[in-house]
């Protein structure tokens, strides 16, 4: 809190005191700004450098001494990226998998979270704790079996009821979506939100004979929108950045995600920095746009949200 209630100075002594305080305040504020700007530089410099590199002519990238600005701007690296990879298909795939995952996580996650915090059915605590403790399991444990489960998924991709005969979800975007479709983190996060809301709204609605789904959907869900938005950003981000798993289950060029694009410009012996920077920037643009639009809700959502426990 800034002290804004300094009385108007009357005596010369008070005036001097006032000026001293003011000077101190300005100095501390200037210092704060300097620190902030320095931090911001560190955070932003890599972006600047990748942008500059992506627009620099090829022959200038590996040239010493390095310069802060390119001698001329070129789109050659971007052209090369679009030539080399099916960019729009990859973008579409990334958007599709991320958005479906976003929807399932928000909807089913909040549904379960609501049940855990407001319905209090028998065993809700036990089940919730089991779910919660699974968050500690490193993903690699289930790597091979999950692949097997997806491959032998009954009735998927030409499989029969026993999972034989077809390819299941192999090389199918569903293989990326399904394992992360309903994340435990989302349930945990949303439960915190529901828990902060009073129970009596539900009680009275139930007395009036309202359907439980309606209570969840009409009464409570609108109240946790900031939470949904925050979780939405987190989920979108993790879906968008998903790398290890798609690498395993997707194979056809038309099924690749955007995160896999960098591999086309970096082989063990050769790294094409121009296109590589271009593609990493292209990778970040959609999520940047999303963040800028959601920024306003974001801190609010985290504040209301799930970190108190």
């Amino acid at each position, binding site marked *: 809190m800034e002290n804004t209630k300094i009385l108007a100075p009357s005596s010369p002594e008070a005036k001097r005191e006032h000026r001293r305080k003011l000077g101190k305040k300005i100095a501390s504020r200037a210092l704060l700004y300097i620190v902030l700007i320095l931090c911001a530089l560190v955070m932003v410099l890599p972006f600047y450098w990748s942008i500059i590199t992506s627009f620099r002519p*090829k022959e200038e990238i*590996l040239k010493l001494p390095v310069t802060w600005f390119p001698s001329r701007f070129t789109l050659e690296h971007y052209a090369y990226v679009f030539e*080399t990879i099916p960019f729009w298909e990859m973008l579409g*795939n990334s958007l*599709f998998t991320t958005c*479906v995952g976003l*929807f*399932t996580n928000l*909807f089913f996650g909040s*549904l379960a979270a609501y049940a855990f915090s407001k319905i209090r059915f028998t065993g809700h605590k036990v089940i919730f704790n089991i779910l919660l403790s699974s968050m500690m399991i490193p993903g690699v444990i289930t790597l091979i079996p999950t*692949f097997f489960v997806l*491959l032998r998924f009954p009735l*998927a*991709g*030409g499989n029969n009821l026993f999972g*034989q*005969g*077809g*390819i*299941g*979800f*192999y*090389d*199918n*975007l*569903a293989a990326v*979506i*399904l394992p992360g*479709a309903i994340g435990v983190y989302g349930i945990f996060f949303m439960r915190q939100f529901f828990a902060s809301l009073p129970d009596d709204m539900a009680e009275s609605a139930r007395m009036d004979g309202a*359907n*439980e*789904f309606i209570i969840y959907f009409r009464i409570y869900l609108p109240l946790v929108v900031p939470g949904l938005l925050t979780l939405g950003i987190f989920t979108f981000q993790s879906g968008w950045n998903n790398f290890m798993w798609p*690498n*395993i*289950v997707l*194979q*056809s*060029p*038309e*099924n690749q995600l955007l995160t*896999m694009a960098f*591999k*086309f410009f970096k*082989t*063990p*012996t*050769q*790294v*094409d920095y121009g296109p590589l920077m271009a593609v990493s920037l292209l990778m970040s643009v959609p999520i940047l746009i999303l963040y800028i639009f959601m920024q306003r809700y974001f801190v609010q959502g985290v504040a209301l949200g799930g970190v108190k426990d």
Partner: protein
Amino acid sequence: MKKQLISAVLSLAVVTGLCACKGGATANDYSQYEDGRLVLNIWAPDQYAGSAVKQKFQGFLDKFNETDEIKELGVKLKFQAMTQLPTSLRTACMSGPQKMPDIVIWDRFATPSNTSYLLPFDDMIAEDNVDTSKFFEEAYSELTVDGQQYGLPLDADPWGIYINMDLVDAYNATAADADKIDVDGLNTWTELLETAEKLTVRDGSTVTRSGLNTTSADGQFFSFIYTGTGELIDTDKDSETYGDTVMKEGASGMMNDGQSLRVYDTLAFFQELYTKNLCNTGHGGTDAFGNGLCAMTYGSIYFPQELSGYALKNYKMIPYPARDRTYLQGENNAEVLDPEAEDKFGMQNGQVGGMLGGYGLTIPQPVYKSMQTEEWQSHVDKAWEVIKLWLMNDEMNELYFTENEAITCRQDLWTNDFYSQDGVIKDIIPYLQNYKMRPGVAGYETFESSVVRSEIQALREGSQTVLTTYGDIRSQGNTLLRQAQGRS
């Protein structure tokens, strides 16, 4: 309540349905046709199909697809560069024919660990009387595992040392006659060391121009071992230690065994290279060589294609020089040998040559027998015909290699005009018979990538001695190799 159940089930169904629709393939789209010709898919690993090579390969395919022979077969070839080929191929072969390629350009040395999904060619070779003696034996046998043939070799890819001749000429212009560099005479380890020293430029202790790229020497270990006519792995099937490293335990074991001594000498030679401060850590890449910051580096026969984007045009490729140094008297006390002479273990001291890399054409098969359908078999038949045409038809073979500027494994064709044009290919062909494939045992590739490489990196950084490195490679290597080969 019913409503809730219904809505929950419905939305689940919608989501699953959505997933299944998008990109959801059905069993029917396995065989695809274009212009009435069956499409056969070829996979190549990305390091093979790196940007320059990829275009050339596509150029070959465009011509190959238009030949009468291919049209007669009723097939059309399509090509796909894979960034993680063995991984993708393994999962694809587990899923069945539908997602599998029909032909794979296969990194030959990885064959022993992956035979469970590569189709043996033996029956087809016998049936069609394919004359396999036309192939360079060393490359052909790299695709042989336990007497079964898992493919036919495509290219012979000898590795060697690339020298920037502009820098050599510049040096020679000012050097006294006795000091001049004779690249053709660069035949031994000692000469390599001296030449590297001559080409190194330092500012104080900082190397401003590297004489020899030593940062990537970890990948050249086998090549150097071989220039001592040694081995790294015991590949003698009758031996008790078959599949282990050749290295004997301890310092005494090392000194009293020809094979072990060569491993030790190579490590000690590497250490000598490192301590001579011949290379700036920043000069390990292609760019440093291409921009004249590094005078000598290692590369395969495809290296010129990587270099095509740089100003440097005047370079030369030589095989790895022969071992003529031994460190029996201590790590820092090299003794110079006559490379042609035999030592007390009955082995020749040294020989120019190196490691032979390269690819083969293979046909993958579904892992599970139940997936090996008739339709798949029909693809295999066509793929086999294509491979025969590609490799055994002289004209087609030449078409491929002229397009790709590489060396065929058909040694009967090495006398052709294409291989006698001036350039690295012509220079290296006379030495090809000296080249040797990597050891054909399961687990070798992991041994090389995760044991040898990291141990030599540690040696380069000076964080461990030659003896420790030797001991680690031996013990970790044996453990890993035994596990990979299913021995305990």
